[in-house]
Structure formats: structure tokens, C-alpha cells
């Protein structure tokens, strides 16, 4: 018998069975010979419940007495109300994410929370928020040597005592920001450029900037911010025993490596597109 024939025969038999069972099992059902034989077998099987003794009263009592009022079992909730707490939690998470990702202050807070490294009084922050520009004008003063720098700068600058082979101090500049609050000591920073003879030192062979970490009545100068699109690497390192941050910036033709370190109240920033991270750390450790 093919599958299709078998399915049809099975379905016809089921119809006959239903007809016979709904009639209380007494009706004669017209059917082909094969189905009649199976119907007879089915009729014998349908007698099984009558051949079994009725349930003992004890089991009926035992089973039905275990039923408690509906309130005994966990309270029933209709449809989506059952998931109301989950919906509410999901909605709250979405709202928080929207607030965090769309509103500028939240974005800044989130970004700072995600990428803020504290070096004590100085913080290095990677944030998409633009730093507020101060209405200042930079005035550069070329200095002859470190002795003059000590005389000009409002803090005692440190000196690099070990530079890579072939490197020499090529320029020394004190930069004053005019228009900054009075509590910010001026000149604001000292920039020393080192490099090989004959090369343009503005090509960042090695630039060392030093400025004072300073605090005023309502504001402070104690933080270096980077835009996340510029930063390709951010790593916490050690200069001696002190914490420092290594930042690699990818916006130039070759990565610009910066080592930021805080030492004796000064923030010191080493920048080079030539020297490795280890060399920058070694130079920082040579500062006296």
C-alpha cells in the first residue's frame, strides 16, 4: 500500500472510529472489509476501561485533596502584564543609552568614564567633546639655554640628561598665553626640541613640554584631552616607579607617540614620531 493510500485508509478508519465511539459503541458502521476488521480490533481495545476495576476511593481522595485554591499557586497574570517588569527594565536601559549617547554632557561623562587615566594631580582623558577654547594668544620667547629657562619660567624646569645618539638640544622656547586667568603661572609652558643636526626639529624628533599643574578658584589646569578619532593606542606605563600614559596618535603620516608623566608638580609631555615607547620612557627617567 502506497503512502497516500495508507493515509487515506488511516483517515477513513479514524472517521469510522469517531462515528462508532460517538454513538456510544452500539451502532453498526458501514465500512470496507479491511476497515471492518480493524474496527473490530479497535472495539475490543475500547472495552479495556470496562475490564479495569474502578479507582479506589482512597486514590480519588488522595489526588483531589492535594488541589489548593488558585491563589496558592503563583499568581496568574494576563498576557503581556506578566512581562511588564522586563519591559520596564528594557525601556529604562534604552532611555539611559539614548541619554548617554545623544546628549553632549552625557557623552562627555560617558567618554571620560571610559577613558580617563589619573596620574595623581594630572588626568589624561580621551573624549569626543571639544575642550572649551580660551580667548588666549600665544607669545613665544626663544631662550638660549636651560639657565635662562630657569630664570624665566615660574617653575624649576627639569633637564633631559640623556638623549638618543646624534640628538642635541636644537631649540628652547617659553610660551606665554596672554588672556588666561591670573592664577595660571606664565610663561605657561617650556618647549625643548631635540633632534639630529640639519633636520627640521618641527618634525617631532623629540619635543619635551613642561607646564605646572595649577589650580585656581573655580578652574584648574590639570588635564590633557585627546579626541578618540586621533588615538590609536592608549597604555599605562611606568617612568621609574611613577605612573605615566603612552598615547599613540594616528592623524599624522607616521604615528605620533606621546608620553605623559607627572613629576614634582609638573606635567611633562614627550612627543616623537621617531622614538619608540621604551626610548621615551628611558629619556623621561633621565630627567633631573
Amino acid at each position: 500500500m502506497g503512502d497516500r493510500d495508507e493515509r487515506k485508509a488511516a483517515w477513513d478508519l479514524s472517521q469510522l472510529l469517531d462515528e462508532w465511539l460517538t454513538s456510544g459503541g452500539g451502532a453498526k458502521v458501514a465500512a470496507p472489509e479491511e476497515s471492518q476488521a480493524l474496527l473490530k480490533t479497535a472495539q475490543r481495545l475500547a472495552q479495556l476501561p470496562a475490564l479495569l476495576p474502578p479507582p479506589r476511593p482512597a486514590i480519588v481522595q488522595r489526588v483531589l485533596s492535594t488541589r489548593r485554591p488558585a491563589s496558592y499557586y503563583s499568581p496568574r497574570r494576563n498576557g503581556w502584564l506578566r512581562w511588564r517588569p522586563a519591559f520596564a527594565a528594557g525601556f529604562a536601559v534604552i532611555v539611559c543609552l539614548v541619554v548617554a549617547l545623544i546628549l553632549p554632557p552625557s557623552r562627555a561623562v560617558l567618554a571620560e568614564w571610559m577613558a580617563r587615566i589619573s596620574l595623581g594631580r594630572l588626568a589624561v582623558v580621551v573624549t569626543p567633546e571639544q575642550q572649551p577654547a580660551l580667548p588666549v594668544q600665544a607669545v613665544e620667547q626663544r631662550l638660549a639655554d636651560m639657565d635662562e629657562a630657569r630664570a624665566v619660567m615660574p617653575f624649576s624646569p627639569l633637564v633631559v640628561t640623556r638623549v638618543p645618539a646624534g640628538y642635541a638640544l636644537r631649540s628652547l622656547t617659553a610660551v606665554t598665553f596672554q588672556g588666561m586667568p591670573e592664577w595660571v603661572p606664565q610663561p605657561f609652558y617650556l618647549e625643548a626640541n631635540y633632534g639630529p643636526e640639519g633636520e627640521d626639529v618641527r618634525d617631532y624628533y623629540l619635543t619635551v613640554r613642561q607646564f605646572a599643574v595649577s589650580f585656581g578658584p573655580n578652574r584648574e589646569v590639570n588635564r590633557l584631552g585627546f579626541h578618540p578619532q586621533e588615538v590609536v593606542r592608549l597604555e599605562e606605563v611606568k617612568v621609574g616607579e611613577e605612573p605615566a600614559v603612552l598615547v599613540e596618535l594616528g592623524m599624522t603620516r607616521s604615528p605620533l607617540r606621546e608620553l605623559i608623566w607627572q613629576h614634582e608638580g609638573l606635567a611633562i609631555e614627550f612627543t616623537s614620531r621617531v622614538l619608540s615607547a621604551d626610548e621615551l620612557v628611558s629619556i623621561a627617567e633621565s630627567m633631573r
Partner: protein
Amino acid sequence: MGDDFGELYSAYLPRVLNFMRVRVGDTGLAEDLTATVFERAFAHQRALRTEEAFAGWLFRIARNTLAEHFRRRGRRGDALPLDDALEFPTDTPEPEELVHRREELERLVGALRTLSQREQDIVTLRFVAGLTNRAVAQAMHLSEGNVAVILYRALRRLRGQLGERDG
């Protein structure tokens, strides 16, 4: 829906018990399994939406409970032999009638045991528990068409078995 199913539970108790009796053979064990089925049904009644689905839902629990029992025993196919507890109260039929019934019961259950577990489940649900094909399909997670075909094949095999024994 709460206590709306109270009468249904009472009406279906003998059917579940008979299903278990035929499938496991031992009355004490069948009673324990039946009690477990009803405890689970009471506890999960809120999953039941309509009265029409009651039979399929209750016997799905019964079948799962039975399968769990067989798994735990590590003997999927074997059921215990029908025990003396299947005897009727002495005040009902005549002794000859009682013997005849018991022989018929043993013949039918013996033939059933030659079927696969799934076939036994379907035949027992249909003829012992008295479910429709639709309710059997719900209890077994099968389509009605599949139930009809499996039932058809099982009946053919049972006819052979019972024919041999009767012959």
C-alpha cells in the same frame, strides 16, 4: 479560570489512572504516577487557556510523567506485569465472568506490549483514556494525520497479534 476545571479533574482522574495502569501494569505505581500528574497539573494550571485543550494538556503531562518514570527506571520498553490489584471488587461480576474479563485484559495488554512505546501511548490514549485524535495529537505533539496513520498501523499489528492469540 481558577476552579472552573474542578469537575474536569474529577472526570479525568479515572482516565489518567487507567492510562497509567495499562502502561505500567502495577496499580500502586499507577496511582503514584497519577497523583504526580495531578500535582503537576494543579501547579501549572495557569498555562491552560481553554477547556477544549484540557484533555490534550492533562495527558501531555501524564505522558511526560510516564516517560520520566521509564527513564528513571532505565527500562524504556518494559512495563511491570498486570498485578493482582487489577482484580475487581468481589461483589461485582460472577466468578466466571471475572475470569473471562481478566483473560481478555491480559490478552489485550499483552498484545499492546508488543508495540513500540509511541504506538502504545497512542493506542492507550485513544482507547483507554478515550481521547479524540485531536487530543491525542496535542498530548503527543504530533499532527492529527500522523496520529491517524500510527493508529492505523498499530491496529493492523494488534489485529495480527490478537488473531494469533485468539486463533
